[in-house]
């Protein structure tokens, strides 16, 4: 359900702060063809409006914004940071892996989200992503039983 493109996997990046990290996730979505440029700023806006709630597990942020005209097709991006950044979350800082999520409608993403939960219910998944050195390493993390639809796109 959630597409992941090689172009949207950005490994070993650096970001000055959480804004930079979220914008990298937007860059990945844009490079993959899933979202247009304004979407990255809209993801930043979610944190400005509501706080660091997108940091949903230790070391992991799930950047996203509401559906909008800047979403081309539903999909995700993966960013790993060489230096973890602080978002201001009371429990889960600092963040070394940022997932970018773009969805066309709130309803349609439910199956994809359930699959994402399957991947990260394995508590080693975030560490393995943070340590990924190649696109294949990243795909291996998402390639778990029950996750059949993280389809490849080129």
């Amino acid at each position, binding site marked *: 359900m959630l597409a992941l493109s090689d172009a949207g996997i950005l490994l070993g990046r650096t970001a000055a702060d959480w804004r930079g990290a979220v914008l990298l996730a937007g860059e990945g979505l844009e490079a993959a063809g899933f979202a247009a440029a304004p979407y990255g700023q809209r993801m930043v806006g*979610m944190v400005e*409006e*509501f*706080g*660091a*709630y*997108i940091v*949903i*597990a*230790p070391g992991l942020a*799930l950047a*996203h*914004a*509401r*559906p909008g005209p800047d979403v081309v097709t539903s999909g995700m991006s993966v960013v790993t940071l060489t230096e973890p950044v602080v978002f201001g*979350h*009371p*429990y*889960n800082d600092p963040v070394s892996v940022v997932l970018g*999520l773009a*969805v066309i409608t*709130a309803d349609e*993403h*439910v199956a994809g*989200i*359930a699959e*994402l*939960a399957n991947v*990260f*219910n394995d*508590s080693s998944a975030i560490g393995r992503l943070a340590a990924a050195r190649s696109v294949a390493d990243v795909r291996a993390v998402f390639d778990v039983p029950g996750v059949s639809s993280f389809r490849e796109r080129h």
Partner: protein
Amino acid sequence: MKIVAICGAGVGTSGILKVNAERALARLDIEAEVSATDVASVAIAAADAQVILTSPEFVDRLGKTNADVIVVQNYFDVDELTAKLEAALG
């Protein structure tokens, strides 16, 4: 039994919370309807909810509620959700 998962957009994070809350409830053998919504709709969505699941950021935004508010640290940790739901509902 009604449980509402709250996040900023009603997209993404609250969906993960809903999926994993359902897994925790299955472990506890508790039947409940879990819905995911955004914080702007909380007054309506959670009016008759027994439990609200959310992030620390949203606690102050929930307003007056009779529901038990459960603050979730790790959205992917079904053990944490199970323990907190059991404490609230058990």
